């Protein structure tokens, strides 16, 4: 996996973790099971460190999408975008495009071929 993809996936995982810790339903559920979720600040700090490693243009694209979608970046399975289930064009899978971070023409999510 390209480092750029890896960093964005790590960022999204972290954002989901932060969201769950803040989310009323999930955090209530986790607390009721006995988990303490008092390190939110630590997660925010980990996020700050992580975003410094991501190229600004890509980070900006991610941040814009993350305002609308929980999953701003997704892997491609088959020939579909797993975010909107739109069919991807054949050019998406060409040798020159395979390693690149691509965009779904339908919903704009960032996509990568795992």
């Amino acid at each position: 996996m390209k480092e750029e993809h890896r960093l964005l996936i790590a960022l999204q995982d972290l954002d989901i973790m932060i969201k769950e810790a803040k989310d009323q339903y999930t955090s209530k559920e986790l607390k009721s099971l006995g988990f303490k979720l008092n390190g939110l600040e630590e997660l925010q700090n980990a996020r700050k460190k992580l975003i410094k490693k991501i190229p600004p243009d890509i980070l900006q694209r991610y941040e814009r999408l993350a305002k609308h979608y929980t999953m701003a970046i997704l892997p491609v399975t088959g020939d579909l975008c797993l975010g909107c289930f739109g069919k991807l064009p054949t050019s998406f899978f060409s040798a020159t495009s395979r390693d690149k971070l691509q965009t779904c023409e339908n919903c704009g999510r960032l996509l990568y071929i795992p």
Partner: protein
Amino acid sequence: MDSSKLVSFFEEDLCIFHLRSRKKKSAISEMVRHLARHGRISDEQFIIEMLKNRESLGSTGLGKGVAFPHGRSLAIRKLTVLFARSSSGVEFNALDRKPTKILFLILAPSDKGAETYLALLSELISLIQKPTKLKKLYRVKDFKSLREILGGNEK
């Protein structure tokens, strides 16, 4: 969730009955390395970092000698559970500060809902509330016995 469903999440290959590590960080690495060796994950460091972040939110060592390190990631394609037992105990920064002897590592895909992994966590936490089962878990040495504990009806 019925007991047969619970048992179905466990695989013999994904059990460590003699965890060597004594510290949290190395125990997490040992378990993740085991998953990588059995082809369940491809990027060990990535998963270790994710679990480290989860632990910084709050220790998953819930006390009574049991911990539930867990996390969700796009790098995980299928709900995966690893069972580990340590006879000497791991310093896991548990809520009761006691050494952790039983670890259930749960990894779930982040592009699926949180419901299944929360239900699984809930089921396992209910299980360790049963003193007979917990005592047996502390001593479990093979997969057959683990299945019996997970699937049995003792209180």
